[in-house]
């Protein structure tokens, strides 16, 4: 009973406002301590998470980078992280884990990958104007591709690396992009086949003595492309 009376007297004598002024500093300490713990024990980059570790180490999220490959038999095609997965990729770089890297790889494996196309605005516009209806759409979709050697702003691509469609699209057969949702399906046979996706997270450090940036593989996962998205 005495304890209860003491507590009641203490709470009555301290105004809520007086207690509240400690809230922001206490919150800062709690979050910073949690960040330090996660960075020292786990894999969190000291730069992020509210622990004020910026400008203290080379090991920022930018120093952790991804290498992702579509694996088709013996062939491995490196691919860029698509825009729709940039946030997940950034999270994987900031606080790497096998689970996050696997999720990234799986979402990449679920996607449909096709050759990157560079569209010449004037030629595309002229192609649309000169054709009607389905013909124009087919042309823009690349169905009327000709196997001619590409010549785009003077850029000459060897036939095995690129080709040019009659409407002025330059198609890079070795530079792939993932088709985003709501985009029209790629021309038949243009989606790239692959059986697996391998995602690697690398981390570089600066070696002053050797005057070099040296990268080491930090994590690697491989997932099967069992979904029907890729053909």
């Amino acid at each position, binding site marked *: 009973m005495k304890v209860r009376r003491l507590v009641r007297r203490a709470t009555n004598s301290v*105004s*809520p*406002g*007086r207690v*509240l*002024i400690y*809230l*922001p*500093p206490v*919150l*800062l*300490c709690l*979050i*910073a301590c949690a960040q*330090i713990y996660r960075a*020292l024990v786990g894999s969190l980059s*000291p730069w*992020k*998470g*509210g*622990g*004020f*570790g*910026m*400008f*203290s*180490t*080379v*090991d920022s*999220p930018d120093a952790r*980078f*991804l*290498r*992702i490959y579509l694996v088709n038999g013996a062939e491995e095609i*490196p*691919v*860029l*992280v698509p825009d729709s997965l940039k*946030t997940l990729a*950034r*999270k994987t770089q*900031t*606080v790497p884990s096998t689970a996050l890297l696997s999720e990234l790889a799986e979402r990449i494996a679920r996607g449909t990958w096709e050759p990157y196309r560079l569209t010449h605005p004037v030629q595309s516009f002229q192609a649309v104007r000169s054709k009607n209806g389905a013909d124009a759409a087919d042309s823009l979709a690349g169905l009327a591709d000709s196997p001619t050697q590409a010549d785009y702003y003077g850029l000459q691509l060897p036939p095995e690396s690129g080709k040019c469609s009659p409407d002025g699209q330059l198609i890079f057969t070795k530079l792939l992009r993932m088709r985003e949702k709501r985009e029209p399906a790629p021309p038949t046979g243009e989606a790239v086949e692959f059986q697996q996706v391998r995602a690697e997270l690398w981390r*570089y*450090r*600066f070696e*002053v003595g*050797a*005057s*070099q*940036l*040296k*990268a*080491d593989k930090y994590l690697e996962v491989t997932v099967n492309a069992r979904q029907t998205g890729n053909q």
Partner: protein
Amino acid sequence: MLDKQVISESYPAGAGRETGARVLPLASLGERVARLDLFAIMTLLLLLLYPSDFWYVRIPLTVLCVSAFVFRRLRLDSSFWFVVAMVVMAGNYQNWFLVDNHKYLLGYWCLSLFCCLQTDDPRRALAAIAHWLIGLSFLFAVCWKVVSNDYLDGTFFHYTLLLDDRFRAIAESVGGMTPELTEANRTAYRALVNFDSGIGAVPLLYPKGIANLAWLFTWWTLLIEMLVAAAFLWPAGKLISKWRDYILLVFILSTYSVAPVLGFGWTLIIMGLAQCEERLKYVPRLYMLAFVILQIYNLPFRAILAAGPS
């Protein structure tokens, strides 16, 4: 707690409490309210000029800030600052792996404005909170630099001077880097991190001056941050804490001249101004001056000098 707690600047001296208003100490009431209003305005400017990258934070904050500029009463309303703090902190929580540390500090600061308006003397309460926030954030920054395995040996600033765009001007003007060396290093960097790269290491080129500059930056940054932490965490009015405003101003003016993270700089200036003792006549003016100088730092000096007189 969130019921109307508005400070009324038109409160008559000697008047008792009225519904919806708080009594401030009678002496200098108007001045204190004006100062709180100033901190509120500076915070609103900070929120508007350095907005969040996320639309669901940026748009509500823009609406709130513009409303507070139009309706003066909102600026001293605790409920308003509670909503602002929650929007900022919810954005930070949602994107904790993306946001920079000064966005966390900004969230704590908006929460501080709410908390101080719950007390009988908001001005004094805000000063106390600002004092702690500055001291603690610098303490953690120093801790990270000490425990880091590539800071004290100069590696971090060595790397930064070679590859961080924000340090390019000083690396070339003081460190002896040339545009050709900078470009060679950037090419090497891109070759390493490009998505189709199979390279494991790339050399970086630099003159001897970079090593000296990296050493200077390493120890200057650590020293000034330790001084700020000590000055703000030491008991008020004793030893180094007497000099805390000047030390913080030296930090702000030296650091952000090189790395213009202006959002962070402005947050520190507002907090510095809020904790500044009222008896110091010129120090608040120095903080205000620093508030403007940081914007001048942002001028494209290289382009202006390169353009020359027309």
